[in-house]
């Protein structure tokens, strides 16, 4: 099977390699910066007025080193870290001591995945369909107006766009809550619960769909303008094939393919955008968790979030890569 050898295996190898190097980077980078998080925390405690005697300092240092996996040689630390990664054990969180980091991640991750998956899918579909139609009818005035509007929206970063929506729809017109959805203990999933989620997720999702959709729109428009000039489209037009069929089956269907590859390439950036939007709207996901972890110096939690995110993104990219051959026969039947 050439498909397995030329397509599948390289991608699986890449999957494993990226995870390996990514997590190794997360391990090494803090150690290269020459900063000692343990000393920093002790200093933090001392500046906050807690006077510690030398014995207490040494004991605390040892405990913290243990927790951070900073004991032993670099190699031992490294092996140790992998063991912990496989057991999903990232030690306790510091700002919610002694809740384990993995417990926090378990609570917050589904929210992020939900927002990430829904908004990315919506943005991709909307952007591509609108962009495709606008590209096919690029000489029409509505297509030009839409394009001009998107030229202004596209360059705005997630954080800024989020703040703008927040000011507009939560302060000026208080249509939506300015964030602050609390994660209680597991409640029953009923209609009320769903409505609450929708209310709190609307603005974050809107930000992501509009900004993401704007990007897909522009690329799709460009792709369609080029595909429209391809021989097989012109030939179908010459042959009198119905326009509806040409738009959907010839133009869109072909322009979509590079957009899937592109999605795999930018998924990491999209994910970063999700984290930022979660911060703006205090949406109870990994972004908010990250914000809290960073502002309180919780390294364990940041490491945990980074490692889990690497897993999430690489897996999503792998899934896209596996999906792609189903849509492109040139890969499937070599």
């Amino acid at each position: 099977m050439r498909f397995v050898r030329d397509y599948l295996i390289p991608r699986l190898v890449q999957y494993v390699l990226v995870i390996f190097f990514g997590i190794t980077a997360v391990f090494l980078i803090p150690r290269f910066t020459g900063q000692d998080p343990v000393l920093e925390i002790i200093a933090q405690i001392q500046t906050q007025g807690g006077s510690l005697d030398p014995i207490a300092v040494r004991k605390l240092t040892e405990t913290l080193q243990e927790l951070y996996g900073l004991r032993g040689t670099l190699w031992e630390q490294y092996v140790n870290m992998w063991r912990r990664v496989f057991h999903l054990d990232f030690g306790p969180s510091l700002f919610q001591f002694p809740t384990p980091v993995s417990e926090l991640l378990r609570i917050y991750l589904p929210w992020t995945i939900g927002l990430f998956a829904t908004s990315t899918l919506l943005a991709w579909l909307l952007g591509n369909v609108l962009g495709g139609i606008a590209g096919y009818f690029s000489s029409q005035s509505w297509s030009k107006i839409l394009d001009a509007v998107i030229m202004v929206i596209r360059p705005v970063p997630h954080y800024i766009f989020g703040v703008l929506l927040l000011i507009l729809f939560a302060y000026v017109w208080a249509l939506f809550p300015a964030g602050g959805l609390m994660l209680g203990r597991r409640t029953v999933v009923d209609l009320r619960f769903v409505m609450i989620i929708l209310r709190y997720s609307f603005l974050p999702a809107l930000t992501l769909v509009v900004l993401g959709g704007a990007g897909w729109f522009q690329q799709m428009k460009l792709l369609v303008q080029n595909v429209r000039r391809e021989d097989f489209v012109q030939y179908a037009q010459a042959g009198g094939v119905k326009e509806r069929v040409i738009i959907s089956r010839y133009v869109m269907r072909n322009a979509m393919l590079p957009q899937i590859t592109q999605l795999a390439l930018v998924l990491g950036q999209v994910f970063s955008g999700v984290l930022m939007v979660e911060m703006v709207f205090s949406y109870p996901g990994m972004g908010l968790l990250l914000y809290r972890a960073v502002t309180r110096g919780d390294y364990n939690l940041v490491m945990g979030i980074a490692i889990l995110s690497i897993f999430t993104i690489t897996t999503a990219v792998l899934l896209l890569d596996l999906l792609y051959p189903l849509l492109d026969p040139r890969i499937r039947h070599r």
Partner: protein
Amino acid sequence: MEALRELFRDYRFAVGFVFLVLLAALAFLSFFSPYDPVRWLQVPRDEPPSWKHILGTNAKGQDVFWEATFAIRNSLVVALIAGLVSRVVAVLVGFLAGYKGGVVDRVLMGVADGLLVIPLFLILVLVAMLLREAMTIVNTGLLLAFFGWAWDARTIRAQILSLREREFTQTSLLSGNSTLSLVSKEYVPFTIPLIFSTLISNIAWAIGMEIVLAILGLVRLEIPTLGTMLQWAITRQAMLLGHWWWIATPLALTVILLVALYWLSVSVSEYLDPRMRIQRIGAR
């Protein structure tokens, strides 16, 4: 010069350019500021815009207008450092991978792809967290440069690959020119416009990234940048208190700056891409 004249024909280029010049002028004004950008309580606090303070004053007792001039200047410096330094890396990697091909290409592009797949932002946060105290303007710029080259290295590599396929590469090599003179004489002129267009988009990326790092409190917050200005306004509840002039100023400046940069880069890359140029000609 002919190219520049044609670029100015595109309204997006013209508008982007004018706004960028205006913002640069604003940044330049900071040298004549009557206030110290770092000190607090130099003027009455929380005053709405007036003749004396055209953009009002903030809760720290600083004049928002003059603070903004410093913010633009510093943000531009951070972004320029990030953009220029990462260009060096991107160009080196792109040229090397594209020209050498083979194993070198695969390794370098593997690294670049890895950097692209991993949510870089998180690694950036991790590093910034450890370097927090050292996150001056220069260091922030360098850190962003360290992470901001992968995408553009890919773009430049693709360009080199296509140049390598062209005839003049073979002719030049066969006629005994050294690789170095080939690269500097033949490739560099072709790629300079592309490098310029990636520089603009990288600068925009760096400005956005600086804002996020500032929001997370991961840069030196006393140094005014667009990010730290926004950070102070948000943490001091400018939104809730209705001090719109404080939060609107960095927001508006950021949006104008980024839209201007984006329009410039779109205009330049359309100018570069012959396929899109034909579209402009053919559209009539």
